[in-house]
């Protein structure tokens, strides 16, 4: 940052100003008022006006709190009714962590998990603090050859995390999958989750007065935080998988007629120990096919998968699965003949 060098020495860098503020607030006997900070702490004397100082001091307090520095306010006493500030020395320190070299290797690998720049920054600061706490050298043998990676969460992550930590209601513009329409939603955020390639927010939708799941990638523009902290209660337990309907249950079984040597991945999931047999009343299998039973959870997900095999896999049973696959195949068969009409849907 280019700037004029005032008489009396070079300008104080923000990091050095923050350092001096921490040292001052750690060492103060009772508390320091804003005026004492402005007059005494190195770096604040440069503020051109009271307004400039106030802005600088507020921003610095926010920065320090975000880093974990426990700045507390002390109500004025005695002759002064001015609020004072100090650092809570009890709450300042990181508890003993004492990681083994192998565990530290795991932590170092976990640091690579995030794709977002902001999350990587959070992680590298955490690593610096662990290094300051005396953590030894990492040994990566225990996790050799592993690379965990999650897709970027995007800009909504930061404000949503802040909102959950402070129990603030958020509002954002959201594009509905069903209609493509963008609407403003008011949500009490509970949890940020990553599953199967997507990032989600689980929370209470105030307008619909119900639990809802939002994809972060469909949030348009900024997430705004409500002014009031502690505006709602977090539920004791948030079941992300239940909210996403993604819980894997294998409570249905399909009877499939498969072309020999094909759909090996499907066959691998079959629990058949003896050749499968069709129940009376199921449609006849095309000639020359293997009958295979395969357990599945979600009807639509499994219909997607089966349709993807085209002619290699025919569903004989159950009828609802057969109908779902046929619906997909008919839509696909129509792709080359004409643009689909909206009425084809469903």
């Amino acid at each position, binding site marked *: 940052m280019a700037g004029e060098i005032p008489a009396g020495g070079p300008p104080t*860098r923000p*990091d050095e100003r923050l350092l001096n503020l*921490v040292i*001052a607030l*750690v*060492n103060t006997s009772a508390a320091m008022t804003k005026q004492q900070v402005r007059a005494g702490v190195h770096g604040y004397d440069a503020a051109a006006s009271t307004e400039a100082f106030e802005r600088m001091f507020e921003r610095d307090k926010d920065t320090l*709190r975000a*880093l*974990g520095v426990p700045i507390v306010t002390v109500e004025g006493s005695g002759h002064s009714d001015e609020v004072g500030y100090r650092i809570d020395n009890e709450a*300042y*320190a*990181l*508890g003993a962590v004492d*990681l*083994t070299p192998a*565990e530290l290797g*795991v*932590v170092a690998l*976990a640091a690579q*998990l995030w794709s977002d720049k902001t999350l990587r920054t*959070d992680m*590298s*600061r955490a*690593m*610096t*603090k662990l290094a*300051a*706490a*005396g953590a030894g050298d990492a040994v990566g043998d225990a*996790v050799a*050859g*592993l690379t*965990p990676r*999650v*897709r970027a969460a995007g800009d909504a992550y930061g404000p949503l*995390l802040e909102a*959950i930590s402070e129990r603030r209601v958020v509002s954002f513009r959201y594009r509905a999958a069903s*209609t*493509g329409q963008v609407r403003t939603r008011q949500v009490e955020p509970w949890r*940020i*989750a*990553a599953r*199967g390639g*997507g990032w989600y927010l689980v929370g209470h939708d105030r307008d619909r007065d119900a639990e809802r799941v939002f*994809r972060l990638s469909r949030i348009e523009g900024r997430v705004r935080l409500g002014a009031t902290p502690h505006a709602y209660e977090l539920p004791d337990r948030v079941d*992300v998988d239940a909210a996403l309907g993604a819980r894997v249950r294998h409570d249905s079984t399909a009877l499939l007629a498969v072309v020999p040597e094909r*759909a*090996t*991945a499907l066959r691998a999931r079959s629990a058949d120990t003896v050749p499968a047999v069709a129940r009376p009343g199921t449609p006849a299998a095309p000639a020359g096919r293997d009958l295979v039973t395969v357990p599945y959870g979600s009807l639509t997900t499994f219909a997607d998968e089966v349709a*993807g*095999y*085209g*002619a290699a896999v*025919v569903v004989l049973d159950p009828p609802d699965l057969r109908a779902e696959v046929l619906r997909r*195949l008919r*839509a696909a*068969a129509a*792709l*080359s003949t004409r*643009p689909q009409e909206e009425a084809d849907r469903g």
Partner: protein
Amino acid sequence: MAERADDRLVRLLGIVAYLDGAGPVDVEELAHRFGVTPARLREDIDALWVSGTPGYMPDDLIDFDAFSLEEGLVSLTQSRGLTRPLRLGTREAVALVAALRAMSTTPAVQADPARAAVVTGALDKLTAATGEAASAVDVRLGGPEDVATLGVLSQALAAGRRVRLRYVDAADVTSERDVDPWRLLTQSGATYLVGWCHRAGGRRTFRVDRVLGAELLDVPVEARGTDADVDVAAQVVADAAGRAREARVRWRSAARWVAEEVPVEEVTDLADGSFEVRLRVTNPAWLRRLLLTHAVDVLAVEPPQVAAEVAAAAREALGAYDEG
């Protein structure tokens, strides 16, 4: 690029707290611990040297032994109360604990009890040190992989041995291949094995949920002079981008997940709520399968030849159902 003020502050505080506990430390060693160059570390020492409590008289300042420093040894003589390492902020605790939790649930870790124990150990210690704030974020990695398969692959990686895979590709073709495993890449949704495929004579990426069988061979992997720190995730993307054909698909809004879960080049939102994605496709079978599966939500496909192929496959399938 200038370093962020808050990043440097955390390091400055950390250096003092560490030295207070550790005693004199070599400049190089201290720089290595905090991940900076020795030159940058000396700038940090210079900044600390002039910092202290209001008044800023010599006795108010953080101090080091100047003679030791000339000999390359950092020796703290006055810490001005910064004796303890700073606790983690909420965001830092979340990033750390959520990452470890995600790792502890990956199939690649769970397949190996020794690994799982180390990850759980690290997670327990850090959760105890950071409190419960970290539960705000919940990340689950990996897909429905077979634990026995992952166990064999993990073992092969740890022992540096070749594996024989029975593998079914996106075009539903099964093959047997001998592979020198390099890495297991666990991403949201799926786990991939990256390695040298002796059948193809090149580096290949295999989806672990399509490995039908894995057998540990009594053959050590061949050294290929690959950089172990190479960004595997970027490699997988690069593999997919080679020899690609371009396609454009217009989807109904209901299929918005496509733009999020499929590697698309470009997404264009259209006024009626539908959207168009541009894809680079290396494997035509993969695209045919995507369209066959989700044709209900497809409005248009370019080039027309792709649409014709998909429709032909669908008609053949309907024929098998006896409704040609």
